[in-house]
C-alpha cells in the first residue's frame, strides 16, 4: 500500500527509487535507518541466516505464535518493505555471495561489533576494491575509530557515555536514562541523512565513501548548551527535573485523574499573566515571589507547588483547552500506546496499518512527514528467506543448478 497517492493519478515517484542497499544490520539502529530508506523506495536486501536471525527471535510475537520467525513484531515492524536473503556467512561460499551482492549495491550498512566485517572479508577496503563507488555506513556504540572502538554497549551504555544522562533526572538526584531506546533510532536517522548526502555527492562526482557513525556522538548532539557552558564557563551541568534553565514555570504536573499529567511552559510575562488569569489566580502576578521571571526562578519550589496544587484539581484535557485558549503552551503527557489511536496522528496519516501474511494487519508509526510530489511505499516485512532465490538467480545470475547445489550444501540456510 502507498500513501499520498491521488486515487486517479499515477503513483508518485519514490525518492530513492533505483538505490539498492545491502543491509547487515541488527538490533534497532541500522534496521531503523534502512526502514525509512525502504519506505522511501530503496531496494533493501537484508542478509539473514537461520544461524543468525536478526530480530526474528525477539518478542513481542503475535499471540499463539511465540518463537515463530515470521511472527515477531520486533522484526516485522522494523523490516517492513525490505527483502530477506538467507546466506550463512560462516561458510566461505556464503561470504563470497555477500561480497558479490556488495558489488552490485549502491549502499552497504552494518552495526556489527567493530572488526567483525573485516574478519569476514567484508570490510570497507575489501568491498571498495570490488565496488569503488559503494557508500558503506558502519554504526557502532562507540564508532569505528578511536581508543574505545572495540568497547561494547547497548543503548543504555550510549546514554550513560554520551553526556545526555547528566542532564536527565530529577533535581538533586542521580542521572537517568532517556526512554524509547533513543540512541538507536537517533543514530539510525543520522545514518539515513548521511547516506542520502553521500548519494547526492556520488551522483555529482562518482565518488563513494565510508561513513563512521558513533551512537554516542549522535546523542551528544542533543546537549550543546551543557557542553558549551561547561567548556566556556566551567559550569557543571545539573539535573533540574522538568524545569528550564531560563523560563518558569516549566513543568509536568499531575492531573486530577491518576496517571494523567499536564505539561505547562510559560515563555514570557504575557503568557504568565494569561496563565494566572485563566487559572483564577489574580494575586500571583503581583505576588513578590512570582511577579518577575527572576523572582519565579528564585522561588521555583514554591511556584511548582502552587501550580502543582492547581493542576491536581483539573482534568488534563479541560485544563489544556483552558490554557490553550488563554494563549499558554500546554498539553497532556501521552503514552506511546495511546498514540496509535491519537486523533492528531490519525488525521495526518501518522499511523500506518500494514498487512502481513502471517500476523495479519498491524499498526505502526508511519514516516513522520508528508511530501506533495513524491511517494512512500509501505509493504509487509519479508518471510525468512523469501527473496533468496529471486535475488541470487536474478540479481547475481546464479544458475539454477548452482543455486540447488548451494541450497543443498546449507549455504543458503
Amino acid at each position, binding site marked *: 500500500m502507498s500513501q499520498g497517492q491521488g486515487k486517479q493519478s499515477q503513483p508518485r515517484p519514490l525518492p530513492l527509487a533505483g538505490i539498492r542497499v545491502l543491509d547487515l544490520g541488527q538490533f534497532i539502529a541500522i534496521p531503523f535507518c534502512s526502514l525509512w530508506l525502504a519506505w522511501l523506495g530503496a531496494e533493501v536486501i537484508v542478509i539473514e541466516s537461520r544461524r543468525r536471525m536478526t530480530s526474528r527471535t525477539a518478542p513481542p510475537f503475535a499471540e499463539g505464535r511465540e518463537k515463530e520467525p515470521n511472527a515477531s513484531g520486533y522484526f516485522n515492524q522494523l523490516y517492513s518493505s525490505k527483502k530477506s536473503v538467507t546466506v550463512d556467512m560462516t561458510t566461505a561460499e556464503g561470504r563470497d555471495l555477500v561480497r558479490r551482492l556488495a558489488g552490485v549495491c549502491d549502499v552497504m550498512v552494518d552495526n556489527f561489533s567493530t572488526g567483525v566485517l573485516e574478519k569476514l572479508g567484508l570490510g570497507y577496503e575489501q568491498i571498495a576494491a570490488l565496488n569503488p563507488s559503494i557508500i558503506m555506513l558502519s554504526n557502532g556504540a562507540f564508532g569505528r575509530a578511536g581508543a574505545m572502538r572495540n568497547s561494547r554497549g547497548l543503548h*543504555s551504555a550510549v546514554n550513560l557515555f554520551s553526556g545526555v544522562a547528566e542532564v536527565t533526572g530529577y533535581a538533586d538526584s542521580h542521572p537517568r536514562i532517556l526512554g524509547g531506546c533513543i540512541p538507536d533510532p537517533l543514530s539510525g536517522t543520522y545514518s539515513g541523512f548521511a547516506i542520502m548526502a553521500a548519494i547526492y555527492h556520488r551522483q555529482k*562526482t562518482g565518488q563513494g565513501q565510508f561513513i563512521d557513525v558513533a551512537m554516542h556522538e549522535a546523542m551528544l548532539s542533543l546537549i550543546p548548551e551543557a557542553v558549551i557552558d561547561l567548556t566556556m564557563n566551567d559550569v557543571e551541568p545539573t539535573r533540574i527535573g522538568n524545569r528550564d534553565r531560563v523560563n518558569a514555570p516549566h513543568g509536568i504536573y499531575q492531573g486530577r485523574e491518576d496517571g494523567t499529567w499536564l505539561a505547562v511552559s510559560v515563555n514570557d510575562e504575557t503568557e504568565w499573566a494569561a496563565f494566572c488569569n485563566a487559572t483564577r489566580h489574580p494575586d500571583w502576578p503581583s505576588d513578590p515571589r512570582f511577579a518577575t521571571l527572576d523572582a519565579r526562578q528564585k522561588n521555583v519550589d514554591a511556584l511548582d507547588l502552587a501550580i502543582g496544587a492547581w493542576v491536581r484539581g483539573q482534568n488534563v484535557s479541560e485544563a489544556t483547552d483552558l490554557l490553550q485558549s488563554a494563549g499558554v503552551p500546554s498539553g497532556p503527557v501521552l503514552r506511546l500506546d495511546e498514540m496509535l489511536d491519537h486523533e492528531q496522528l490519525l488525521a495526518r496519516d501518522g499511523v500506518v496499518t500494514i498487512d502481513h501474511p502471517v500476523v495479519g494487519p498491524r499498526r505502526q508509526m508511519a514516516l513522520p512527514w508528508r*511530501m506533495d510530489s513524491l511517494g512512500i511505499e509501505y509493504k509487509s516485512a519479508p518471510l525468512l528467506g523469501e527473496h533468496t532465490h529471486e535475488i541470487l538467480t536474478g540479481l547475481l545470475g546464479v544458475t539454477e543448478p548452482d543455486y540447488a547445489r548451494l541450497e543443498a550444501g546449507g549455504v543458503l540456510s
Partner: protein
Amino acid sequence: MSVTNQPTSQGPLTGVTVVELGDGTSAPYAAKLFGDLGAEVIKVEGPAGDSSRKRGPFPDGRPDPEASGLFMYLNVNKFGVMLDLDTKPGVADMHKLLSRADVFMTNLPVKRLVAVGLDAKTLRAQYPKLVVTTISPFGVDGPWADRLSDELVTFASTGLAYSTPGMPDASEDLVKEPPLHPACFAGETISGLVAAEATMAALLGSGHTGEGCHVELSQQAAMAAMQIRDATSASYTGAPYNRLINPITIGRMPNFYLPCKDGYVTIAAPMENHWERLKDGMGRPAWAESELYSTEQARTANWISLRVRLMEWTMTVTSDEMHAFGETSQLPIFPFYSIRKLAGTQHSKDRGTFADLTIGGKPAKMPAAPFQMRGTPWSIRRPAPRLGEHSAVILKDGIAA
C-alpha cells in the same frame, strides 16, 4: 567535475543553496546539518534576531545577542541576512533569495508564513523546483494544528516524556518521579534532524520528478516514529506502557541500570551465557544458584528481588572496576560518564568528538560532527553570523565566493 580534482575540503552538499527562515533549534538545526556538509545556507532573521540569541549560555553569564553559545553552535557555517518581512522591500529581498535557492526551510508558525506570503502553497506555485520544508509542532492540519507548543509541550505529546526514565531504568515513585524531559532541546533537535533527512530525500526525489516538493513535518510525529520498539509492544500486545519498573516493559533480565560504589552502571546480561559470566564476576554467590534465578524466565519474573541482590554487589564495586570487568567478561557493562569525563577521554580526542569555537572572545567546545564521512570530511568554514552580517554582500552580489 572529475573524481581526481575533487577537493576533500568540500562537503558532499556543495552546490546546494538553502534559505532558512528559522527560529530556536528545529529549522536552524536542519539547516546547520546542510551547512556543515557544504551547502550554502543563508539564514534570514528579523530585526529582533533569532530567539536563541537570547538563550545563552553566554561568556561568564553576561547576556549578549552576538555571544549566545546555543546560537553560535546552531548557526555555524551560515551566512546571515536580516530582513523585515513586515515591509515590502523585506519581502522583495526574500524573494530575491528564494529565486536562486534549492531549499527553503522554516519552522515559523503557518499563520505568520501566510501573512507574509511565504506559505508552502504559494512558494510551490511560484518556485516549482524549490524544496519547501515546513516544521511545526503537530503539522499544518488536523485537530491539534493550531495548538501553541514548544520543546516541553511537544515532547510531552510524543510518548517520550512518559517513557523517561526509560529502559533499563524506570520510575521508582510515580508521584515524586513524574514523566521526565531532559534539560536540553532534545525534541527540537530530533525533529530538526528528521527534517534534514526528509529534505535530503526530497532533493534526491527532485532528480526523478524534475520538480520541487513540500516536505511537511510534524515534530510530534517525528519523535513518536522514533520509538518504534515501544510502538511494537503496543501494537502486538496492546499492553499499556507502565512507568514503574516492570519486566513486561523491560524484557529479559538482568538488563539493569544500577548505582555502584562511586557512580552508576548499566549491566546487560539477558541471556544464559551472559548470566553465567556475570555470576563468575560476582564470585558465584550462593543466592545466584537459587531456583528463583535459574532461567531467563525466572530471572525476569523475579527481577525485583534480583535487582536488590545485584545492587548489594554493585555497591561494593567502583565504576572503573565494573567497566574493566565488562571488558574482560565481554558483557555490556558500562559506567556513567559526565560530559567533563567524556571530553577528557582519549576516544573523544582520537575522534574529534568536540570542536573548538570562540564565543565573545572566550574559548569553548561544542559537539562536532554527529557522523564522520571519510570521503567528504566535516568542516567549520565560518562562524555563526552576526545579525545581518552578510545582508549587503548577499543581496547585492549573490553568495560570496
